[in-house]
């Protein structure tokens, strides 16, 4: 199998594949007398190989079940209405008593603001990139250059690890060097919004691209302007895909820890209301971290972790429903 004689670098992919096929044919051609043995041997190898492949497929399920199963089974032992509705008691050190109510509230506030900031920005950017940038792309001049820079920037943002966002949010918002917002809901929310912005842009772009060209042509032919077309025709048609991107971002914010560890503060008291932007707080994911690392209250950490996992499963189900409805709709066309 290591003999790649006829395959050279200068070949096209098709040619290289064809050469390999010929090689295969030649290597099996002269085995007619021992054909049966050969075939049996090849089948045996295939069986062994497929066995290993099955194992790795099953492994993914087993790993998932053991992590999720362990955390949920352990967590359910402390999970009850009281745990969900009591705030964690005390400060950092004493948070092994009490429940997790304020962390749920903090998480909801955090999700609200990140989405309020990131969703409009991301969707508008996606509309521009698909509906408006197409007509200038490929041309020369300032605007096409800027559009390709934007695409590059989105790609970079998607690859930046979350702790870098955290570091940047810490420098720009938290520390006194720039804005001096200290650890607060607003520091965390804006940094979190930056984190999910590429997710929303990419999902929305895909969704908008998938809207058939004929929709736009019909609308434009009726005398609608470009924006009217985008707003009244393209966006509604792309809505399920855009919503999927937003729900995905909600999941990302709920599970993110590193960013909020260095921007949200970690106090067990939640902000008073969703508009109490200057107060610090502690999301559910942060609560798991503090319980495990600072107070070693593993039972409560498991309880919070179980709630976290169930939230994520719910979000995944939601995405599946939306996607399925979308594909059903597309097939109906």
């Amino acid at each position, binding site marked *: 199998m290591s003999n790649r004689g006829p395959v050279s670098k200068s070949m*096209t*992919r098709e040619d290289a*594949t064809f050469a*390999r*096929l010929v090689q*295969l*044919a030649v290597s*099996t051609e002269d085995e007619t007398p021992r054909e049966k043995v050969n075939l049996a041997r*090849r089948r045996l*190898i295939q069986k062994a190989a*497929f066995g290993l*492949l*099955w194992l*790795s*497929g099953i*492994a*993914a*399920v087993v*790993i*998932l079940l053991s*992590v999720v199963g362990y955390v949920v089974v*352990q967590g359910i032992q402390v999970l009850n209405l009281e745990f969900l509705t009591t705030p964690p008691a005390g400060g950092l050190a004493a948070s092994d008593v009490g429940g997790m109510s304020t962390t749920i509230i903090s998480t909801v506030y955090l999700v609200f603001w990140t989405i309020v900031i990131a969703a409009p*920005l991301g969707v*508008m950017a996606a509309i*521009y990139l698909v509906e*408006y940038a197409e007509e200038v792309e490929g041309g020369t001049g300032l605007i096409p250059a800027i559009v390709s*820079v*934007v695409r590059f*920037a989105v790609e*970079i*943002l998607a*690859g*930046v*690890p*979350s*702790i*870098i966002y*955290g*570091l940047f949010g810490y*420098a*720009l918002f938290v520390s006194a060097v*720039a804005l001096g917002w200290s650890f607060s809901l607003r520091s965390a929310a804006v940094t979190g919004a*930056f984190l999910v*912005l590429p997710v929303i842009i990419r999902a929305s772009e895909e969704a908008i691209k998938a809207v058939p060209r004929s929709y736009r042509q019909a609308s434009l032919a009726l005398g609608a*302007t*470009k924006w009217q077309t985008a707003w009244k025709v393209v966006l509604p048609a792309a809505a399920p895909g855009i919503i999927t991107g937003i729900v995905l971002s909600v999941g990302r914010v*709920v*599970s*993110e*820890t*590193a960013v909020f560890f260095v921007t949200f503060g970690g106090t067990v008291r939640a902000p008073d209301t969703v508009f109490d932007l200057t107060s610090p707080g502690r999301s559910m994911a942060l609560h*798991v971290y503090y319980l*495990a690392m600072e107070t070693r209250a*593993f039972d409560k*950490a*498991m309880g919070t*972790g179980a709630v976290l*996992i169930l939230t*994520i499963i719910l979000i*995944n189900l939601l995405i599946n429903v939306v996607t399925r409805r979308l594909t059903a709709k597309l097939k109906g066309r």
Partner: protein
Amino acid sequence: MRRIIDTGIRYVLFLSALASVFIVFLILLFTLREALPAFREIGVIPMLTGTVWRPQQDKLGILSMVAGSVLVTLGSVALGVPLALGGAIFLAEVAPQVVREVVRPAVELLAGIPSVVYGLFGMVVLVPAIRNTFSVPGNSGFNLFSASIVLAVMVLPTITNIAEDAIRAVPSDFKQGSLALGATHWQTIVHVTLPAARSGIIAAIILGVGRALGETMAMIMVIGNSIRMPRPLGGNPLTLFLSQARTLTGNIAVEIKYATGLHEDALFATGVVLFVLIMVVNASARFVIQRGGAE
């Protein structure tokens, strides 16, 4: 009137698109600005090659963290890649529809589980198991090996998803040609499908490496966070992985909240090093994909 609104909106949308560029610019500006004093005062080379991290004495070498990040990434690749690629081939080529509909959501969900939950599971289940399995003096269970296992699970979905797409993208006439010549399905996979999907598979692994280098909280929870250079605990060089370590990401997260002065600058410099590392990794993935597409 409608025309005026249309033009106005065009500019608003344009500005929203520019936001991404602005954010990248801000990230670079703030991280670099804070990191520069450290690079200037300590020097880039002494910082990258220094093995002593003692902020109180302004000794700020990050080589042991670079080593920690690289070693745990290698460990996770060694453990995770065979499983991830096996899973990808399985999903794309072998699995019956029913099984696929169970395995694929499982992989998706693995990607969605928060990293603190992996960290917690690692602390409670994996760390004691590793501590009890390898009776080497100094093995606390919080070490590179535990971290590699956790990280392997975390990069598995990334690699599996991208590799499966690459395998699926191989034209079916390639496979049919091979099967028609009497090759078994497995021979077809090895000699035709995988070579044809090569660039996508390599890109999948590289992107997995990028993901591994960036992981923070789960690493803090299981790797021990020792600032010392990882070294073998016993005679066997493999006991290197039983050594405690600290990743670049962990170094930032653990210390940034109380660091001041040069110490804080050095943490930003750690961020710059991490950023450059990951950009190089992601750029090479893009390069591999583009070259594969041009072939």
